[in-house]
């Protein structure tokens, strides 16, 4: 691991990163071309569609918020050596808890927002904690525990939307009735962008950076992630650390869920998590588990997500093309970086 770290600070790594990005962009262009899209046109549409005017920029930043929060959540658990694939479910449960507060409580607006955020964080923490319990006490690998719980959360959300929380008179999967406008996070003018949500995402990324880089807890967590047995021999309480990582990851994911209901949909819908939990896996792998980089990549991925809507509208391209581009990008960058690393390793021997 230290070897890899050294590589990353050397010039070689800058070059390899540059090459990796160039090659993957070229591949992406080839792919677009192959699928019948004029490459320059698609590139222009992507930029215009995601940053072109205030509305689009604000849409992009509102995709960025949950993605960045989910990424922050994954970075914490990755540091402990965990594959916390259950982030998606934690987002959903956070959204459910926040919706509960928005529906059932009446308070002055700022208080209500605070209560929603607290409730969402609690919900995510609860679901993350369950995954942690399954892993630590039940010896169930967190990939399966997390995924299983995600599907359970999906079931709960559908049950709520068509059952107890259905709109008066009609039960449809299009969602619950909109919340009282007091529970809507404030936005800048008529745009979608909510400064509160942006602040939450920035705070989440900073918190993860601070914890992992500056705190004793972060050091112990990373030690647990690298070698749990060695860490526990050195007096680190590894089980407690793992559990804390799950809980903290859950808090961040739960806040992402809160933003989804409080600032985006203003109601609970079955697809409330928006796939951000899964997409964040790609972000964090590409960002090499670092919070600043992952924040930037989240924004780039949000641009692809929002911009590719224009591909659909203007060029009649399939909606999955954005996702294909993201996946190929991550795969190619990892492979090209690894080829460089491998080449250097061979040089040294």
């Amino acid at each position, binding site marked *: 691991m230290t070897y890899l770290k050294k590589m990353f600070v050397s010039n070689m790594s800058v070059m390899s990163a540059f090459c990796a990005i160039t090659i993957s962009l070229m591949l992406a262009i080839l792919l677009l071309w192959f*699928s019948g899209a004029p490459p320059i046109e698609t590139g222009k549409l992507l930029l215009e569609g995601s940053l072109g005017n205030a509305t689009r920029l604000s849409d992009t930043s509102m995709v960025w918020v949950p993605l960045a929060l989910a990424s922050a959540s994954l970075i914490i658990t990755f540091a402990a050596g965990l594959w916390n694939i259950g982030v998606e479910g934690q987002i959903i449960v956070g959204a459910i808890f926040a919706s509960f507060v928005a529906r059932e409580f009446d308070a002055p607006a700022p208080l209500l927002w605070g209560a929603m955020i607290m409730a969402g964080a609690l919900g995510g923490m609860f679901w993350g904690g369950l995954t942690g319990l399954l892993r630590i006490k039940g010896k*169930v690998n967190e990939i399966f525990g997390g995924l*299983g*719980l995600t*599907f359970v959360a999906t*079931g709960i959300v559908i049950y709520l939307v068509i059952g107890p929380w259905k709109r008066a008179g009609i039960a449809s999967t299009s969602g619950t009735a909109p919340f009282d406008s007091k529970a809507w996070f404030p936005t800048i003018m008529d745009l979608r962008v909510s400064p509160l949500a942006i602040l939450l995402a920035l705070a989440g990324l900073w918190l993860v950076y601070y914890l992992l880089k500056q705190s004793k807890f972060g050091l112990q967590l990373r030690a647990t992630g690298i070698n749990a047995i060695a860490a526990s021999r050195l007096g680190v309480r590894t089980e407690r650390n793992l559990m804390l990582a799950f809980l903290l990851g859950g808090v961040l994911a739960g806040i992402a869920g809160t933003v989804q209901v409080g600032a985006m949909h203003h109601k609970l819908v079955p697809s409330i998590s928006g796939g951000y939990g899964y997409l964040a896996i*790609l972000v964090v*792998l590409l960002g090499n588990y670092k919070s600043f980089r992952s924040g930037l990549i989240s924004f780039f991925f949000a641009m692809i997500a929002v911009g590719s809507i224009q591909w659909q509208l203007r060029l009649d391209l399939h909606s999955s093309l954005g996702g294909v581009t993201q*996946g190929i990008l991550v795969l190619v960058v990892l*492979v090209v970086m690894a080829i460089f690393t491998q080449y250097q390793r061979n040089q040294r021997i």
Partner: protein
Amino acid sequence: MHPETIATIVAASSPLVFAVLGETLTEKVGVVNLSLDGSMLLAAMVGFAIAFTTGSVELGFLAAALASSLVALIIVFTSIELRLNQIAIGLILTLLGTKLAAFLGQDFVRQVGPSVQARAIPYLEDIPYLGKIFFDHNPVVYASFLAIVLVYTFLFHTRHGLELQSSGERPEAAFAKGIPVNRLRYIYTALGGALVGIGGAAFSLDVKLGWSEGHIANFGWIALAIVIFGGWHPVRAALGCYIFGALQIIALRLQPELPGLSQVLPILPFPIMILTLVAVNHPLIRKIGLRSSVLGKIVRSDPPAALGRPFWRE
């Protein structure tokens, strides 16, 4: 239970049987192919698209096996040659496979294409009770029975099978004995991937006909969980598939009686999956497994010792 119900369960479970056998082979040699959810979808799409275009179901299966095998090869190649993490690459390929299947399959959505034709086996189908269950199906279902027997015999009763197992348990020792560990990992990961692909095509060409986006989403994860439940033993894993199939049929039959829960019933497998995983890892179960060798074979679930751990000769 009525023989026809059992026959339905056995037939409906055949795609999962292929996928689970394939992943068991792959994991036995020490490689985790976590991409199942994506590669099965991709294979289901490729299988259907090829069968639809050429009119040949056999070519569809072949193409599906190749596509899924290719995905599996990416995992083993990046792990052995580039030292990338198998889980990371597997997850990327899961997401990429899902999106790629949706993208490449857009022209085949909800088309009516060819499917595997039923062919009862003469004479054998007339055996009372058992004939209905085992011999009144189509070739894909018979192939799934055959695959269970073949994988079991190969793994535990042939020299090659033992070499495969040693590569997943003690790669260093195996290598010292002259077994080409990494070559075996390439071969059996590709072979396992091909079986996974056949499983995917068995969905789109037999059990759940046709193609649409997210056609068989989540079945890959179920397959991965059944491999663990099956304790990396092909016969037990196949049994897991049949139990899962039975649960699904029960849920389907319950739907008319519990209309309010019809949207929620599809998620029922997942809490059950978690509980079974807790059960197979429970200390009590493990203790029983250690005490008695016969019971141990039935209840214990230990992964290959070098599962997911790359082997480099240095």
